[in-house]
């Protein structure tokens, strides 16, 4: 921002707060676009999943503009879609790992919070993207924390892709939404402007002369 970029998309509340102190920029929150879920191949985790708990996660656990996850979720509405492939029952988990994509700070914070609450031998394990995808497919870990888009243009296709990556879901598996996050757009007032369109979509337009 100090370097003079025209448009900045950020999920950092600190950065948004800094933008509010400057007169040459304006910031606007974008729509809630991602939902962070915890997927468990062998039943749900022994944690509270109430709205209060999830709101606490959004407020304290992550450093992002977040709220408790709010439905409806496209992956729960399978009407009209082809039934997903279901794998046979999984062997007991060999680890107590709650894994997350290594470069994802929000997922890491959520995984660490779950580890803190679960206690015992649970550990948070960050994996590289490919390794995370393999681990998710195998279903060998205790739980997986990762983001899903809040909206999809092709619901059945997205469901098929998610089911393909988590074939264990149909047996004992579960996907529990935790929090929703959104980005904030920061633009320079003299170069760009933000405008709401008729359907509340934020559009970046040229400033008024």
């Amino acid at each position: 921002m100090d370097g003079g970029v025209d448009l900045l998309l950020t999920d950092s509340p600190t950065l948004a707060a800094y933008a509010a102190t400057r007169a040459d920029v304006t910031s606007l929150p974008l729509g809630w676009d991602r939902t962070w879920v915890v997927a468990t191949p062998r039943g749900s985790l022994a944690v509270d999943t109430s709205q209060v708990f999830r709101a606490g996660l959004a407020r304290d656990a992550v450093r992002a503009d977040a709220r408790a996850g709010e439905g409806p979720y496209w992956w729960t509405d399978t009407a009209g879609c082809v039934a997903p492939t279901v794998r046979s029952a999984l062997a007991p988990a060999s680890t107590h790992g709650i894994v997350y994509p290594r470069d994802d700070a929000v997922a890491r914070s959520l995984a660490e919070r779950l580890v803190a609450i679960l206690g015992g031998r649970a550990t948070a394990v960050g994996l590289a993207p490919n390794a995370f995808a393999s681990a998710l497919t195998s279903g060998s870990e205790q739980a997986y924390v990762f983001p899903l888009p809040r909206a999809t243009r092709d619901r059945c296709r997205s469901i098929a892709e998610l089911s393909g990556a988590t074939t264990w879901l149909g047996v004992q598996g579960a996907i529990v939404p935790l929090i929703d996050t959104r980005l904030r757009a920061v633009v320079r007032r003299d170069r760009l402007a933000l405008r709401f369109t008729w359907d509340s979509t934020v559009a970046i337009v040229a400033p008024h002369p």
Partner: protein
Amino acid sequence: MTFRSRLLIAFALATVVPLAMLGVGVRRQLTARLVAQHQQRVDGMARVAAQDVERESASIASRLSTLAGTLRTDDRFRMAAVRGDPGERAYLLDWAEQAMRTTGLDMLQLQDSAGRIMSSGHFRNEFDRLEPEVPRALAMAKGAVLVRARAPEGPFLALVRADSVRVADRRFDLVGGVKVDSAFLRRFAREEGLRVALSIPIPRMLAPDDTSGLSARDANAVTALPIRYFTDSLTTARLVITYDIPELALLRRDVDQWFAAALMVVVAAGLALAIWLSRRLSEPLATLTHAASTIDLEGPELMVAASRDDEIGTLARRLGSMSTRLRASAARLRQAERRATVGDMARQVNHDIKNGLIPIRNVLRHLVQVQEEQPQDLATVFGERRSTLESSVGYLDTLARNYARLTPSVERRAVDVNGIATEIAASTAVASTIKVRTRLADAVPRAFGDPVIVRRIIDNLVRNAIESLDAGGGDVTIATSRAPNGAVRIVVADTGRGMSQDELAHAFDDFFTTKPDGTGLGLSVVRRLTTDLNGSMRVESAPGQGTAFTIELPSCTPS
């Protein structure tokens, strides 16, 4: 195992074991002396390490004290922790992480008076967890304590201290410290050869990189530094400091080499000596063994070299003497056997001649009776009984020729068993109370054997049957038939007193008899003769119910 092998093993043990004990003893003594020399040095290093730990502890305490001081004047902290301002909640949660970064600590957590974690630097999202035990244990220990701190990626060991601060009349505890891992331990190993390891009550809690990989067993000079350790309660861990004495390894290697060389020489010399001695000892024994194995009581006298004047010479002389006595005993035994054989044969000849003479005597008595009572019929009767006389004489003649040969040859030709049975029944003169009958089957085939032997078999059985009858008389029946297997079956049965089980068991033994004037050869002769003809024999008898002997002889016609 041979005597020579045992001797070799004994020699090997007698030389190797003492040498091995000597080598081990020298090695241990050398090690003990050198370790004792270096132990003081290691103890000194341990004291330095203890001072380092104390210094580290003081450093941690100083940093915590500084943090406590800043908290007293931190308004944002006051707003968040005391007033509960939601706007400063994130500041409170991130405070410990920030403070840890600025102070260089590896572990820091801020807890309220109830032990609730309000901010954690090493595990940011551990907030709100109750952990009152650690501040309490640290307060009791009054110094640095090893604890197992939780982290998202797993627990780690940390050397921690505690401090407290009061803000707005509320007490807050600060627990912070440094990570104890292999890098931490290496800081105490200031010299070459010095190694530091941590021994804690639950070894698996020590992550692999937390140990310098040394156990006391490998150590040369060792000392242990106690350090407080908290898991569920306060216990003691040990900082184990070991020193590898370089010259000790060299010395051990030299001793091992000398020992190996000495061992090889001693073993080689011992083996050579053992082989020479074992040969000296075992060769005469082998000679004696060979001589003993060639003792032949029938052959020439055993010649054993007995010139030695030691135990082996004595053994050889005694073996020779024993051989001589054995030869004398064997000669006496052979003589006795010969005498017994002659006696047995005499008894058998007597028995057979008596059997052959009986028909002749009966014919003669009959002729005498006819001459006295009906002289005019003498010629007729003589003509009738002449065949009996000739048959008996022929029988005796054959016997004589057989005995002359001592090993009679068995003829093999067709034998008319019915004819022989009829002849024996007719020629057997008995008292009027005794009846000798025949029950002969027409379809009986001819037996394949020697007619003299068949006659001897039936004759002996009939005589035996007559002699078994009581004074009141009885019947003796000679029956012939064809056995199911095609053999010629001859059954001689009587109505006599029969035999008990015990008598049956010995009926065919030589010289076994129940009659006062019996030879005890009849049935044994029958069995031997039957066997000579490749026949079989069985007997059925019971006391008071008579006896039946069944002979089966091979027939001339196939079955």
